[in-house]
């Protein structure tokens, strides 16, 4: 084994890098308990801004809207992303496969302004030709979020699918199981942790998106990032610090659950 020194350059960088990632968030959380309206001056501990936050009807309704959209988008994205992952890992020779794989991996890097603009133009054109969607809002944001979240789900699920032992599936099919039944009885339980983490990832991505939602939304639907953004543009405010703290805690919890599920299934696999 290569000896690794206790204080090597890379280890120091790792610690510094993690500090760089976490310190700004810690500062944000600490200052959300600041009594002062001025963000830079510490005036004692207070939960005043949290109370203020829970009285803000605009923010509360935006939270509800965002949660609904994220739930529906994540659910649909898991279905589409899993199908894509199946095509990617199982159907090696199929016409159109290359096109599908380009379309599913492109949203991972596509600048959001382009995705948002292109989907808006589609919805406008659709409204003119087939009369739907007459109003842009929840449904259009749902479609947009589903599309880009599917890409992330496909990555997570295909990583898991590649590790599934296919001989069990083949045995089930040889014994007369239909492909559909094989999927639900054999494959699904094995990839379930990946589906849950994919769902959670899609949920947080949808909850977080500002740019795409701003393009495809209409006057009726305001999501949480849109409210936060319009307030943040005016500068730093302690109420937004309080909101940010709650979001960081909630999302960290979701991410931790996803990580834990993946880890446990990995350990189970290694043991067997």
């Amino acid at each position, binding site marked *: 084994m290569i000896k690794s020194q206790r204080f090597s350059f890379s280890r120091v960088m790792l610690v510094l890098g993690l500090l760089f990632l976490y310190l700004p968030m810690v500062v944000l959380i600490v200052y959300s308990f600041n009594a002062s309206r001025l963000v*830079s001056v510490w005036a004692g501990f207070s939960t005043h801004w949290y109370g203020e936050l829970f009285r803000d009807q605009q923010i509360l309704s935006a939270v509800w809207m965002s949660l609904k959209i994220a739930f529906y988008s994540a659910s649909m994205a898991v279905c589409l992303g899993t199908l894509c992952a199946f*095509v*990617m890992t199982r159907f090696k020779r199929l016409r159109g496969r290359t096109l599908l*794989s380009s379309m599913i991996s492109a949203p991972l890097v596509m600048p959001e302004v382009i995705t948002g603009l292109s989907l808006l133009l589609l919805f406008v054109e659709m409204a003119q030709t087939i009369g739907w969607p007459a109003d842009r809002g929840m449904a259009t944001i749902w479609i947009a979020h*589903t599309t880009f979240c599917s890409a992330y789900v496909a990555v997570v699920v295909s990583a898991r699918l590649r590790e599934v032992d296919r001989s069990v599936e083949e045995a089930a099919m040889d014994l007369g199981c239909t492909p*559909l039944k094989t999927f639900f009885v054999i494959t699904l339980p094995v990839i379930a942790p990946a589906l849950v983490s994919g769902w959670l990832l899609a949920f947080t991505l949808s909850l*977080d998106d500002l740019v795409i939602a701003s393009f495809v939304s209409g006057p009726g639907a305001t999501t949480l990032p849109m409210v936060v953004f319009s307030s*943040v543009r005016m500068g730093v405010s302690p109420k937004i610090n309080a909101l940010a703290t709650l979001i960081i805690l909630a999302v960290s919890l979701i991410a931790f659950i996803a990580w834990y599920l993946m*880890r446990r299934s990995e350990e189970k696999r290694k043991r067997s």
Partner: protein
Amino acid sequence: MPQKLPPSPLMVRVRAVLFHRRVVFGIPFLWLLLFFLLPFALVLKISFSSAVMAIPPYQPVFTFVDNTVSVVVNLSNYLFLFSDSLYIAAYWGSVKIAFVSTLVCLLIGYPMAYAMARASARMQLVLLLLVMLPSWTSFLIRVYAWMGILGNQGLLNNLLMWLGVISEPLKMLNTNFAVVLGIAYAYLPFMVLPIYTNLVKLDVRLLEAASDLGCRSLTTFWTITLPLSKAGIIAGSMLVFIPAVGEFVIPELLGGPDTLMIGKVLWEEFFNNRDWPVASSLAIVMLALLLIPIVLFHRLQAREMEKDD
């Protein structure tokens, strides 16, 4: 009378498999065709249109008169983009800022990934969570956190003044420095994770052989580790560079009046000037600019997804 034979069990199975394949392939294919590919065609179409005061605010490109289709292709948007120095400066500014940020991410991210890959198996899981967690947490809020830190009355200036390093606040917020810092901060996990995935698969025996043969550790790194982690470096760099070129939130919140980035210009053309055709042609030129990095990324991604372990 020729009797119709019942299909053989094998045929039934083959047919069932083919049918399921078609459904499994067809649903996501149609969805992405409609909601991913078709929209780009529309962006291209509308980039040839011109803005009018109407709903929707652009002139139709195809018109049907007496059963004939007439196409009006208008290149004026593109000519406009290339004649106005503002747009060229914005494209150049975006590429420059994205490039510098990618470099910063790589310089911080590579050693981090290296140390992670060398840690014990139990520690790796924890480190993986620690690096992944910020990328899940709200992007907008993580950028916003820097506003409170970098401002003239912000934490960093107060700290530096208290330490006596500076006597009056440094202007850090609303500069290109803040934008680069913000992008590097927001995208760092996307650089670390692909490089880590790559380094962790590195065959340790190669390194042992090199050291047995008297290779110094730095030479081993340059001649073995670095070349073998090329795929991870490229994937990570693309994951940072491509979205950074079109970034809107970070230049809007951390940048200043002299920060020219194309994502911000596109947003303003669309939302403030309501000039959809110009916004569309801006998007098309941006895509053309990013085509090579996107194809490069896609190739790596496809190889990664199709690989059999």
